[in-house]
């Protein structure tokens, strides 16, 4: 063991930072590569050349491309691919921030009741709000968004009554999740069988609703909130050493907590309102990142987002193509692809990634 390796802290730090930056860039590259690949995949029989041609024809005056290829690639595949990426990013980012701010490895938008809240809002819109399907598209989205944020507010409010302890907050979230699930079950029980199908469909989640007009709104929103959350990386790093430590470093723990939780809630709510419940990614992406690059939030937050995007994009592409033209709900595929990968990391890594 040479002396400079032990003592030249700056160099060790620089090397570690460089590694993490490289990892982030590799992830970004992979997401882009899979996105390009996914553009050529689908139920319609389009060759690779035709698919790329359709995209290029938008920007360059290249050779003629069939309207069919343009419709399929530009109107159907691209919005869906982008939707997968931004949904993955927001779930991954929100999961990383929530786990960091609450210092608990089991926290995710799902455990805090946000997803159940959104689902409950959607179910209310489906069963009580509208009797006719299709017309209620935006009513469902708005309801889901509103209920998701409402859940966060209630959970936070309850925990405030008991002096904002982290445990109360998580338990309140879990409890609210159960309450909303009960409401959903009740609505499922009283609803007609086609409404039931729609609720079940919503509960399974999916990216089939992707449209340019939704994606165009969501991309800037997701990027904006992600950037905003990344500004709190140092605070989150300090808080991971404990509330007392963070306070002694001059951090207003409660303020950071409420800001981060609210921003993550908005981030999650805005995508799941469109996609339905997509579980697992918000919980696991941060852990995968911690296993691979440690828990420095400056890297953890973006990487967790990118891992989320990668997993969701791969899963969605698989679900579009496995038994095409029939599509499999993405939640099923996400778990089949993600869980073995996560379990592998869990047993193969020796590092204690949590704490």
């Amino acid at each position, binding site marked *: 063991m040479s002396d400079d390796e032990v003592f030249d802290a700056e160099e060790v730090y620089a090397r570690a930072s460089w590694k993490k930056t490289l990892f982030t860039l590799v992830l970004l590259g992979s997401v882009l590569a899979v996105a390009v690949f996914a553009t050529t995949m689908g*139920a*319609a029989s389009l060759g690779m050349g035709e698919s790329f041609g359709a995209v290029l024809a938008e920007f360059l005056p290249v050779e003629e491309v069939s309207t*069919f290829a343009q*419709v399929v690639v530009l109107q159907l595949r691209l919005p869906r691919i982008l939707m997968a990426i931004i949904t993955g990013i927001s779930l991954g980012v929100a999961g990383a921030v929530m786990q960091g701010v609450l210092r608990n490895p089991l926290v995710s938008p799902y455990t805090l009741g946000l997803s159940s809240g959104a689902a409950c809002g959607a179910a209310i819109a489906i069963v009580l709000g509208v009797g006719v*399907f*299709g*017309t209620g598209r935006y009513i469902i989205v708005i309801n889901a968004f509103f209920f998701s944020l409402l859940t966060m507010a209630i959970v936070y409010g309850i925990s405030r009554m008991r002096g904002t302890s982290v445990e109360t907050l998580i338990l309140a979230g879990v409890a609210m999740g159960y309450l909303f699930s009960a409401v959903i079950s009740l609505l499922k029980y009283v609803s*007609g069988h086609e409404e039931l199908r729609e609720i079940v469909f919503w509960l399974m989640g999916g990216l089939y609703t992707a449209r340019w007009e939704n994606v165009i709104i969501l991309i800037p929103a997701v990027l904006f909130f992600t950037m905003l959350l990344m500004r709190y990386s140092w605070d989150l790093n300090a808080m991971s050493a404990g509330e007392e430590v963070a306070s002694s470093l001059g951090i207003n723990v409660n303020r950071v907590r409420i800001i981060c939780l609210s921003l993550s809630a908005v981030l999650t709510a805005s995508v799941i309102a469109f996609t339905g419940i997509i579980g697992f990614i918000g919980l696991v992406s941060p852990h995968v990142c911690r296993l691979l690059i440690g828990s420095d939030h400056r890297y953890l937050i973006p990487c967790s987002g990118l891992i989320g995007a990668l997993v969701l994009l791969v899963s969605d592409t698989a679900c579009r193509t496995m038994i095409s*033209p*029939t599509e499999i709900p993405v939640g099923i595929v996400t778990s089949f692809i993600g869980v073995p990968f996560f379990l592998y990391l869990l047993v193969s890594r020796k590092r204690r990634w949590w704490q």
Partner: protein
Amino acid sequence: MIKVVIYVNKNQGIIGVLVCLCLLSLALTGSGGEATPSSDTVTIVDYTGQSVEVPYPVDRVVSLSSSASEIICALGASDKIIGRGSSSIFPPYIEDVPIVGKSSYTPSIELIIELDPDVLIADTMLTGDNREMIEAAGIPVIEESFVDPPRVTSVMSNLGLILDKEERARELISFIDQYQSIIEERTADSRSEDKPAVFLERGQPYRTASASTSSHNCITTAGGINIASGESVKYPTVSPEWVVEMNPEIIVRSVWATTGETFTREDLKEESDELLSRPGLSEVKAVKDGRVYVHSSKINSGVRSIVGELYFAKWFHPAVFEDIDPEAVHRDLVQEFYGLELEGVYVYP
């Protein structure tokens, strides 16, 4: 000749005995005793293959199936229904009948036993446990399927038999049969290249139906080709891009109606507009040719499924079915068998 005479004599003899018995029973009734219900029963075989013995004629029926309720009412025996599943909502006057559960899947055993009907009619969602429990209480159970038109016809005649409405059942069956044979005859000689490729959507966007579903059968009977017939999932959700590639000549969207209220033209137009606004579909032949049809699921089940079939046939082969007016048939059907005026809108455009 002689033989015939003997038969007549025998028959007269039998009638004589019957008349005597009637007089006797009248005498008994007159003497203050309860009318002894005749010990007559009939046995029918239900969809599950079980022989079910029911009193004849049946007077008190609980129907957990909305299709069965529709048939019973069409037979003019609505007054015999003493309990219904909450999904039985047609004809509207059936809503006065007490509810004894939601569907065949969730019957209230206690309420049913309390009502003590002569027979309970359910569809195949009835669980074996529930059937056993109801039968153990001495209530015969008829479990039926209402998906396949030939089966529905035999259910109609079975119900006509046990309710003592056989004449009415024959009328109902022949009303439906006459149109079914028109469809069959006229689509039989259309060659396969004349059959339009059809994409049928049920409720959720891009959810369709593969072979061995009633929706598929309806398309086939009406002389169309279901583009999703080969899928392995019964009710798959398919990729939009696949629909664009298959380029169906006709798109039919079924809008699910679970409540009693009927659709307005506006409701169905909204459904149609939503479909037409979906990304990518503008390139599909059906959309370009203006052959996108929206209809209420109410004309696709129970007694009224013949109306749905006529609409399908007319949409698929407008020239061949030019003289057929499905709406008029629908109006006749509800007027003749339910005594109702046709209300609401069922198709768009």
